[in-house]
């Protein structure tokens, strides 16, 4: 039998979660908006009624109010959405262990085996939709197909609360006439690039030869052509209960090579602040510190070290990272072109912490609380609102954007 893959998309996810708790708002134009008090909040999700008025995701709040004056706005409650997302996955996992989440509201499910057909997939989709409606009060749109990109596409075609089948028999009629940017992986930039060569529909893209695509845009081109042609065979990742992220890291090519170990120290702080902030944001901490160095001849070296305690704070990460540099003789490789830092062996920071007998627990606790405060200042007033004194001491430091802006979005689909 061929593959049977479902892509389940919870419709207007944030807004629908809120409606479960506020039935009085059902049937009214409502939107979940970020930071409503501030002027730059944006629409994160809108109900169907709001969408009818022209309210769109990512619209600025006042813009949304302009197109729909009666719009009711609600601040987001991420805890609630994570809870619903977890409950959705619990339901999916009762049917298959091959569940791959894509953001909070989307999942691929793989039902392929010797006997399951696409028709069975459609029936399963109906069962899932009914259960989710009964148990969670949410509606799903589900795409059923023989590969992941088509399943994803299918879930976008009919909304809400619908199933779309894309089979080997109908994909040429259903998928190929669609504009090429309906395909996962094709964004606005790629659409324009393709349009320049009159590749306008998914069918156009499918008709390209892989070799020409490779010559044109490299590996990415070949992947997209396979997506379009329905030949993608990437597996649906099995669910694992461990944290999905194995490590969090960053690397920087400094605007100017690092000539001294002190330069490296400064850049290391930039990295550690960024990595630390991302760890804390993910609610995690780690105990394996890895450092990588690239010298001016583009040679790459790396080493790692495990410490006894878990950490997410730059002040604790940097000394270890610097010790690695010294111990491994990386200081002889100066000048460096780029530096990388990552923290692995992660655990959730809600776990109870093993206090060491001689370690300075009070100091560490103070440090953690300090970072909490600094993080919240950064979130509210921007990255430049509060900086390390080190930023003033070394101009090299100051030209680098400390924390790479990471908007919350689904994990990259293309690896």
């Amino acid at each position, binding site marked *: 039998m061929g593959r049977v893959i479902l892509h389940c998309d919870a419709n207007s996810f944030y807004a629908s979660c809120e409606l479960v708790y506020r039935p009085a708002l059902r049937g009214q134009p409502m939107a979940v908006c970020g930071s409503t008090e501030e002027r730059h909040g944006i629409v994160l999700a809108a109900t169907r009624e709001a969408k009818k008025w022209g309210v769109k995701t990512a619209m600025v709040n006042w813009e949304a109010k302009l197109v729909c004056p009666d719009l009711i706005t609600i601040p987001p409650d991420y805890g609630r959405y994570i809870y619903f997302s977890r409950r959705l996955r619990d339901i999916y996992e009762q049917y298959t262990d091959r569940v791959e989440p894509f953001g909070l509201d989307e999942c691929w499910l793989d039902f392929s085996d010797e006997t399951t057909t696409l028709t069975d997939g459609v029936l399963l989709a109906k069962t899932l939709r009914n259960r989710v409606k*009964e*148990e969670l009060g949410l509606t799903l749109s589900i795409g059923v197909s023989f590969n992941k990109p088509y399943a994803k596409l299918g879930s976008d075609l009919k909304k809400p609360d619908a199933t779309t089948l894309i089979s080997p028999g109908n994909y040429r009629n259903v998928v190929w006439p669609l504009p090429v940017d309906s395909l996962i992986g094709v964004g606005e930039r790629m659409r324009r690039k393709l349009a320049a060569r009159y590749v306008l529909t998914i069918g156009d893209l499918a008709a390209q030869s892989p070799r020409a695509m490779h010559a044109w845009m490299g590996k990415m081109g070949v992947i997209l052509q396979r997506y379009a042609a329905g030949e993608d065979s990437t597996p649906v990742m099995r669910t694992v209960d461990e944290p999905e992220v194995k490590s969090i890291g960053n690397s920087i090519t400094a605007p100017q090579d690092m000539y001294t170990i002190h330069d490296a120290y400064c850049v290391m702080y930039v990295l550690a602040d960024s990595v630390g902030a991302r760890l804390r944001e993910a609610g995690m901490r780690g105990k394996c510190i890895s450092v990588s160095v690239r010298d001016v001849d583009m040679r790459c070296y790396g080493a790692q070290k495990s410490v006894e305690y878990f950490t997410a704070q730059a002040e604790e990460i940097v000394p270890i990272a610097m010790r690695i540099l010294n111990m491994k003789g990386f200081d002889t490789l100066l000048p460096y072109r780029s530096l990388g830092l990552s923290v692995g062996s992660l655990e959730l920071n809600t776990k109870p912490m093993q206090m060491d007998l001689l370690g300075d627990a009070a100091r560490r606790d103070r440090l953690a609380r300090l970072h909490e405060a600094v993080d919240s200042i950064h979130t509210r007033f921007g990255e430049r609102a509060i900086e390390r004194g080190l930023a003033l001491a070394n101009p090299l430091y100051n030209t680098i954007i400390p924390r790479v802006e990471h908007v919350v979005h689904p994990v990259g689909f293309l690896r």
Partner: protein
Amino acid sequence: MKERFAEKIYIGVLAVTQPDGSIVPLRLIWPDGRNWEIDRVLDVRPGVARKAGGEGVRYLCRISGHERELWYAHGQWFVEGGEVKE
């Protein structure tokens, strides 16, 4: 179709927790103190309270000959009250 709403009423429940972790409600205690014995639990499954809002574990129970729904969610019990007219 006109949507129907109901008041969400949080109630007290006397219940027993089984060794397997499942919870069996025995007696329902209204906010004013009146209480009723739950004769039988007819059905237990996750479910939404469509009229009052909220979701959780939905217990379909027989209480003095009537079938009533109870929800257990995030450590609290609630029922749907009478329908509120728009």
